[in-house]
């Protein structure tokens, strides 16, 4: 596959995001549902960029969302009265990326030397250790966290703050999802994609083939972390306007990311959005129709799905489409 045609698989993904977005615009009363789905899809895309492409399971991934949330929270709570207007939001986005990248460099230096379960446990350790450092050393208000609803309102006005939290933050989440999708396909179709595919299948052989595995792993790790930082800054900080360390370092978000990626198909481009939609929609309707019992229903379903379709839904679809005209659109 040559030239532009190799980017064809991004079409169905971007179309799906566009459809979701338009559905949300046409149904203003379902916008928050759309926003939640967009968050799950974006989380899946961002997580997949590292986990799916390298096969390394980062269990502490939520730490990058958490520190991104802090980036935005600090920016708003410190700069709200400096008369910078929406510039503060831009600074917040930049800060969240910078924080996430710095943390990913620190984590990567330690954890990326490890493989398999050792890597997974090390990253859990980073996430938990970092949270307790914030609480124990009273960094950024410690466990009391930062509530910055008021500052946001004083900064941009009541109406603007409200539409920021209930609409524009979600639009930004869509933006993160699209950036993640584009980066994923550029990586997958570029040299780095082949390098990561090689190291996922046989890391030692990859080294012998001249692949500097550490370098490519770190690039993917940093990219994925930066996207998570943006996601924290938008879906958590701007949308909810507060941050408590116990919330933003909750390990169940990593588990959700894993479920989404696995339901869709790890290492595929289309997988995270399919997984995110399946996960989000089924969770939502279970919460509506079976309040209090949805997890009891959901957990066995997950087990059945991973036993029956270990490659995820997209992996299965891809296999069915081999040899058909649609093949080149699915990745």
């Amino acid at each position, binding site marked *: 596959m*040559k030239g532009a045609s190799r980017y064809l698989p991004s079409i169905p993904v971007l179309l799906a995001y566009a459809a979701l977005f338009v559905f949300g615009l046409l149904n203003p009363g379902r916008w928050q549902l759309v926003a939640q789905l967009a968050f799950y899809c974006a989380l899946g895309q961002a997580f997949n960029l590292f986990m799916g492409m390298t096969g390394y399971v980062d269990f502490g991934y939520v730490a990058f969302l958490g520190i991104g949330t802090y980036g935005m929270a600090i920016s708003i709570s410190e700069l709200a009265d400096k008369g910078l207007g929406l510039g503060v939001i831009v600074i917040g986005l930049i800060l969240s990326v910078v924080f996430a990248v710095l943390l990913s460099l620190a984590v990567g230096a330690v954890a990326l030397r490890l493989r398999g379960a050792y890597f997974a446990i090390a990253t859990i350790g980073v996430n938990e250790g970092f949270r307790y450092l914030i609480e124990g050393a009273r960094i950024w208000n410690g466990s009391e966290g930062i509530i910055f609803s008021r500052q946001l309102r004083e900064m941009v006005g009541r109406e603007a703050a409200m539409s920021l939290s209930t609409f524009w933050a979600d639009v930004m989440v869509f933006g993160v999802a699209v950036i993640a999708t584009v980066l994923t396909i550029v990586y997958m179709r570029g040299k780095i994609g*082949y390098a990561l*595919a090689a190291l996922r299948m046989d890391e030692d052989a990859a080294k*012998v083939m*001249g692949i500097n595995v550490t370098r490519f792993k770190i690039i993917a790790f940093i990219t994925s972390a930066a996207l998570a930082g943006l996601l924290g800054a938008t879906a958590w900080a701007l949308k909810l306007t507060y941050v408590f360390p116990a919330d933003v370092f909750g390990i169940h978000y990593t588990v959700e990311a894993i479920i989404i990626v696995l339901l869709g198909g790890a290492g595929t481009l289309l997988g995270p959005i399919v997984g995110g939609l399946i996960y989000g929609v089924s969770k939502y309707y279970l919460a509506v129709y079976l309040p209090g019992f949805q997890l009891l229903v959901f957990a066995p379903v997950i087990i059945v799905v991973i036993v029956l379709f270990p490659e995820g839904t997209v992996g299965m679809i891809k296999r069915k489409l081999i040899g058909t005209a649609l093949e080149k659109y699915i990745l």
Partner: protein
Amino acid sequence: MSLLRVENVTKRFGGLVAVDNVTMEIAHGEMMAIVGPNGAGKTTLFNLINGVFFADEGKIWFEDVDVTHYPAYKRAHMGIGRTFQISRPFASATVQENIAIGAMFGAAGSETNVDQAMEMADHYIGLIGLSSHRDKLAGGLTPIEKKMMEIARALAMKPRLLLMDEAMAGMNPKDIDKMVDFIKRIRSEEGIAIVALVEHIMRAVAGLAERVLVMHQGAKLVDEPTKIALSDPRVIEVYLGVPPGEADA
């Protein structure tokens, strides 16, 4: 100037000395075979040369650069290619992609983009006669096809030194002859030095190598031109059994 120089290299695993004070050299474009029974330390020596393991003692020079502490990928960039005793294809990538990975990241990697690498891959697929399998997943090939694909992948790296680990194990005599011809051909076409590891197929050694290095229990036993080496009594002893009395030595 030699292409590769190995000086007094030793590698231990726990109490076991896998490679014991080996010194060897190979010139540009030379064709050499390393023979020895299973466990003689041949593969470990390979792993030391291309950087999978690091030597405990001694030095390794490649084109007069001290590469003793270079990681594997850097040595690949400098021009050391490698195939494995048990094939290690990237199983869920296609044959073309496998070979293209060699082209993308090997010695010529920094100047090769993805499209060029795919074209190079097509060239090498033709060379090894696997054109009909171009878009097949590498995991689905027969063992011999995998071996051929690995050679193509290593060649796509544009190496100056190709290390071939038991390329002919498990082949029948007819295939071995074909393989020997193939290796000779690529050597003259690509102008590279080749070191082949051979456990016991003397037919291949005799047809292929200009020089033979015999290893025994981690140490270098003989390093002579092929004809001399193969008639050396020590070599015959190693292959045909150790006479009584020396068993404990």
